[in-house]
């Protein structure tokens, strides 16, 4: 049973659990714990599926005579494991290479097209009317890009909030967190995967950067900057989710800052439990059994 149970846990952690957790607002006040919980869920899903593959292989070797249904179920588990492992390796490499290539090219363009204002070494100003601000994280070669359109619609404290937000992304390498979730999303086959982990990770990372900006420039300027830069509609794009995320960020700014110690402790504990419990109750007993069987 172990392989099937592990496979089931893997599938639950890859699909329904993120879907439910993504819809709840439980993690929104504690983005740091939230990111950790999402990472642990993702890791647990991958480990469970890999574990299921191993367990199934051993089961196939040790159990010669069983019904066709059980054999078929185990073949499915092995198949799923192989797909996830191969795709995860492939997707990680692909996402890492794509991201770096795109960022490098963009940085090269920004460097020859943008202006330096002389205050911050990595800050580039683009002579463009569309209000926008973004960062290009990279070790030692960070760029924070702000358009002239953004400068003209942001007052001093608002600009400070934007810069503080982007610098928080760059300093904490939030892009690496997002990259891991992108790879994971690409790795799981359509139908099994959920888009929630990646979307939630994006949202949590934005909220973390918002917290940094809020403590430097205040909630009011940050909120105004958010609305000023998000409130520009663009012709293309499916943006429902994005709008939702700006609304959630604003909502968070409307509430006073107070620490949610209990909630974040609970999220951290859940993160540990999700990783440890399947290992202790399923993987370890199975390993002992398998060892006894094979030796």
């Amino acid at each position, binding site marked *: 049973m172990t392989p099937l149970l592990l496979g089931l846990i893997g599938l639950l952690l890859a699909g329904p659990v993120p879907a439910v957790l993504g819809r709840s607002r439980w993690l929104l006040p504690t983005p740091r714990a939230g990111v950790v919980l999402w990472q642990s869920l993702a890791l647990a899903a991958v480990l469970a599926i890999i574990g299921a593959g191993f367990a199934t292989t051993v089961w196939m070797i040790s159990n010669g005579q069983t019904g066709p249904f059980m054999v078929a179920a185990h073949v499915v588990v092995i198949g799923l494991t192989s797909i996830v492992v191969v795709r995860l390796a492939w997707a990680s490499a692909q996402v890492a290479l794509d991201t770096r290539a795109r960022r490098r090219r963009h940085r090269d363009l920004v460097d020859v097209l943008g202006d330096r204002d002389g205050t911050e*070494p990595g800050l580039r100003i683009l002579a463009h009317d569309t209000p926008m601000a*973004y*960062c290009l994280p990279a070790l030692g070669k960070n760029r924070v890009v702000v358009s002239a359109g953004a400068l003209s619609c942001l007052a001093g404290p608002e600009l400070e909030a934007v810069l503080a937000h982007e610098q928080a992304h760059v300093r904490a390498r939030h892009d690496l967190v997002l990259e891991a979730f992108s790879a994971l999303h690409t790795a799981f086959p359509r139908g099994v995967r959920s888009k929630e982990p990646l979307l939630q990770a994006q949202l949590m990372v934005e909220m973390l950067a918002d917290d940094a900006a809020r403590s430097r420039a205040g909630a009011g300027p940050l909120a105004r900057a958010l*609305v000023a830069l998000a409130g520009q*509609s663009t012709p293309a794009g499916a943006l429902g989710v994005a*709008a939702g995320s700006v609304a959630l960020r604003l909502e968070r700014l409307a509430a006073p800052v107070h620490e949610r110690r209990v909630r974040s402790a609970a999220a951290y504990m859940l993160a540990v439990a999700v990783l440890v419990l399947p290992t202790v109750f399923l993987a370890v007993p199975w390993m002992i059994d398998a060892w006894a069987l094979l030796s």
Partner: protein
Amino acid sequence: MATPTAPKLGDLERDVMDRLWGAAEPRSVRDVHAELSAERELAYTTIMTVLDRLTRKQLVSRTREGRAYLYSAVNSRAELTAEMMHDALSVDGLDRTAALVHFADRVTPEEAAALARALERVQHHDEGQPGS
């Protein structure tokens, strides 16, 4: 902090590109050096290094003309601007890689109106707090 007397290679890249965009024909290192060193002191080898870096970045191409190399911009400024803006504005949620981390994603007009209403609530709350 960089001192103003020693411009970094990055700053020069931009100036060199400006010269190449402004030129009707491909320029040699000597041409570019002559133009730029009219404004400030620059070593010939520095310009050579900058042009070499720009070539590696595929922003500049070079052709051999007799004993010297001639350099020209691969794309016009307008083309590169279009490419950059397209890349910066192609926000497509899940497919977007973590290459560019935007401050705020864009929204539809109705959503923008909803955001403006939400902003009022934030400011209402913020007035009760001393500014930081």
